């Protein structure tokens, strides 16, 4: 078999060697409980404080505004439910292309909600956002960059709009953004973005799985949804997972250093240009204001899961928004929200690049693609 090529970095990334190394001592050397007063506990505490500071530096906020969680999903849940639960009769605004960790949480919250429309590229308009705000609105949650189609929202402008609205409001609107996909490539300065809440994920940025972080502006009071020993400022109880927290800190610290945005973007643009030369192919999502590592296509006459499995046979990992690959057998809600017909969503393929992706990898993908699509079109007769 050929060398294995991983082009599914939006799904997860490998743990960076430096991250792994930073984590190692915290498993069985510095294993104390960070809440303990003795030296075992205190040396672990140092690791956590240090990681918290690194995340705070990256987001340009105070260390006390960082809450470590078990995942980005948990961070989204904590902020969204935390804000909504502290009001009676509340209203929340979100978009149809959010991750399920936001959409499902909003739906389950019991609050009134508005799902804003998106255009064919997946963009939310500022006018629609402004129009949706009413006197009951307490929260807006819009993802920074989309995991499937890479659409980058105007978070900064939305933040400015909400701040302006808040000046005349007694009931303040809190603005949250899920930056799990964005963090590796976009500016996450919470001050300049004007956000009150921001979600990060460890494993999307070459950190470990099982760890997320939530930025919560100190002015925002939220009710906890997890109760216990009062860790993480009482917002997220549960014994500190020191190695993962340390890994998260290191991963965040490495973002700027290892970020090769231009290189990734150039490679991605080359990929898109080449793929679109193939007949019956279309790009899903925008050409501009798109996350540097993301590409998403639809291929007439071929189905996504079949494409993925054929690539897998050749050692190439990619993913699809096809119904057939999901647990609920429904096509991607993101692709449907940008107006794709069932069959188009069904035939989608996401290619997401990473730090380790080379031109050779892309060329190998491009060499296989026409063969795979032709072969599936032969089977489908379309």
């Amino acid at each position, binding site marked *: 078999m050929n060398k294995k090529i991983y082009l599914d970095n939006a799904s997860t990334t490998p743990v960076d060697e430096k991250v792994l190394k930073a984590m190692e001592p915290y498993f069985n050397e510095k294993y104390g409980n960070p809440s303990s007063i003795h030296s075992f506990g205190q040396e672990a505490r140092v690791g956590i404080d240090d990681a918290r500071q690194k995340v705070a530096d990256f987001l340009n906020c105070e260390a006390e505004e960082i809450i470590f969680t078990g995942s980005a999903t948990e961070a989204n849940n904590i902020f969204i439910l935390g804000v909504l639960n502290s009001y009676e009769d509340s209203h929340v605004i979100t978009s149809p292309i959010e991750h399920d960790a936001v959409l499902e949480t909003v739906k389950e919250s019991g609050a009134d909600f508005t799902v804003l429309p998106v255009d064919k590229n997946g963009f939310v308009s500022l006018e629609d956002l402004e129009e949706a705000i009413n006197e009951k609105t307490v929260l807006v949650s819009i993802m920074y960059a989309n995991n499937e189609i890479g659409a980058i929202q105007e978070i900064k402008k939305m933040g400015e709009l909400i701040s302006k609205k808040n000046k005349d409001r007694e009931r303040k609107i809190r603005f949250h953004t899920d930056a799990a996909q964005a963090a590796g490539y976009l500016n996450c300065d919470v001050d300049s973005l004007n956000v009150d809440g921001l979600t990060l994920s460890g494993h999307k940025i070459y950190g470990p799985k099982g760890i997320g972080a939530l930025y919560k502006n100190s002015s925002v009071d939220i009710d906890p949804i997890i109760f216990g020993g009062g860790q993480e400022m009482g917002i997220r109880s549960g014994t500190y997972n020191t190695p993962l927290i340390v890994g998260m800190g290191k991963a965040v610290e490495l973002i700027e250093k290892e970020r090769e945005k231009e290189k990734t973007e150039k490679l991605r643009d080359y990929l898109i240009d080449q793929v679109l030369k193939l007949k019956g192919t279309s790009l899903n999502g925008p050409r501009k204001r798109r996350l540097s590592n993301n590409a998403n296509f639809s291929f007439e*006459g*071929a*189905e*996504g*899961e*079949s494409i993925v*499995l*054929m690539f897998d*046979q050749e050692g190439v990992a990619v993913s699809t928004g*096809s*119904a*057939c*690959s999901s*647990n609920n*057998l*429904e*096509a991607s809600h993101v692709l449907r929200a940008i107006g794709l017909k*069932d*069959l188009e*969503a*069904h035939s989608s393929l996401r290619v997401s690049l990473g730090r380790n992706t080379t031109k050779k990898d892309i060329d190998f993908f491009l060499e296989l693609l026409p063969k795979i699509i032709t072969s599936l079109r*032969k*089977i*489908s*007769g*379309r």
Partner: protein
Amino acid sequence: MKKSYSDKAMKHFLNPENMGEIEDADGVGEVGNPRCGDLMTIYIKVKDDTIKEMRFKTLGCAAAIATSDMICEMAQGKKIEDALKITFQDLVDNLGSLPQTKVHCADLAQKGLKAAVEDYESKK
């Protein structure tokens, strides 16, 4: 490790021997699963109430393609009444394993054959 797709199912997906079309087919069945988007066309050639030849065209996932190929393999040479007795479980059993959520694809293949037979009967 239990694979989602057995090696045999993968083989039928990667190299479907019965894909294609029969130009002078005696019966053609078109079925689709709107929910998951699979589209399947089954062609049969019949002589003396026996399915002499059977081909398929399928737009769909690996399970849809593999089950299409398998039902052709199983039904060819059988009397129509016997071919119609092939259950989706027979297809799944013959393929080894399919992901749990994909069992309905086998159901689709069976419906495709049924539709082709109905088309044939209506033309008689």
